[in-house]
């Protein structure tokens, strides 16, 4: 068991999370809806069933946008 760095947006911040962990489990721990984000590791999108390892640097990138009234 180790930790990995997770970059979050809006607002920009970084948190450490336990690893290894499945992407889907990480999102649940962070209370993030999988429909509202993409998880990116080293510039590559990873699916929900991918296992993230200690020392990975992961970005949870929001995809919701729009400013209609």
């Amino acid at each position, binding site marked *: 068991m180790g930790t990995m760095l997770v970059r979050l947006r809006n607002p920009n911040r970084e948190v450490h999370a336990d690893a290894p962990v499945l992407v889907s489990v990480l999102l649940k721990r962070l209370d993030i809806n999988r*429909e509202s984000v993409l998880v990116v590791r080293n510039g590559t999108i990873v699916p*929900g069933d991918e296992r993230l390892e200690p020392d990975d640097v992961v970005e949870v990138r929001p995809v919701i946008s729009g400013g209609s009234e």
Partner: protein
Amino acid sequence: MIDLPRHNANFCPEHFTRFCRDQVERAISDFDMVQPEDRILVAVSGGKDSLAVWDLLLGLGYAADGLYIGLGIGDYSDTSGGYARRFAQQHAEPRGAKLIEIDLVDDYGYDIPGGARAARRTPCSACGLSKRHLFDRAALDGGYDVLVTGHNLDDEAAVLFGNVLRWQTDYLGRQRPVLPARDGFPRKVKPLVRLSERETAAYCIVSGIDYLVDECPMSAGNKHLGYKEALNEIEVRSPGSKADFYFSFLRRAVDRFAPEPAGIDTEPGTGDADRADPGVLRPCARCGSPTSTEMCAFCRLVERAGGSPPDAPPARPVTLGRRGGPDPTGTPSP
């Protein structure tokens, strides 16, 4: 690799890119959006959707220029303009397309924060009104056949959700992925309606398109974003719900809402209706654009914000009169 729960599938980058292209081709075909010879103007913000749709259209061989509007929202506008320009240089100009730019501060003497305060509108309302007017005018003045926007499945489902919550039947009858050209307004189409915004973001990443990820600082807390979050709560429990909601509406319900005269200068559900006499059009006394009042909503916004009036009325044909007449495309007129 990207997982798409609503299709119960994982895609490699190559097949995902093909999937996105197929979805846009199908939307264009199903809704008869554009013709191969059309000159297209794409409304570009620097975000994922507008850059994705511009890239996809160019990849499909369409002649598509971009139009970026600087909104004067501090660093956010400076940054978004940079993304739009870089995309144009790296992806559009090599394929023969160009980026046109308008700057609210330089060209019209106001910005969105100031305009919103002066006109007592929400920032999103002032922004939407400004962009719609300027995109419409640029498309017509530039001789483009069609104006493309980057509205995606999530955008359309969220607008539909909001309109259903309030049973805004006039907006519901107009919420289609194609708005025919009429009464001095350009044809407007939304080729991304078959793609979710998670998919357009993924398309940008796998295609090497650098886009502005950060959200507009003025949009925080707006109800449109709240509707999207609510729909995503449903989607994660029942994948495919957003697509079913929107496309079932188009198949089974939209025709039931008889088109009613609604405000112009507006998109369905945006609340910008200009309702003095919503059925009768006349040229705006200031800019010549069609309006139902003496001066169009955009010119009133500019005036209240202390900005510079637009140029003299453009010398383009504006068919005046009551709206709701026959639609030459055969699509019921909103």
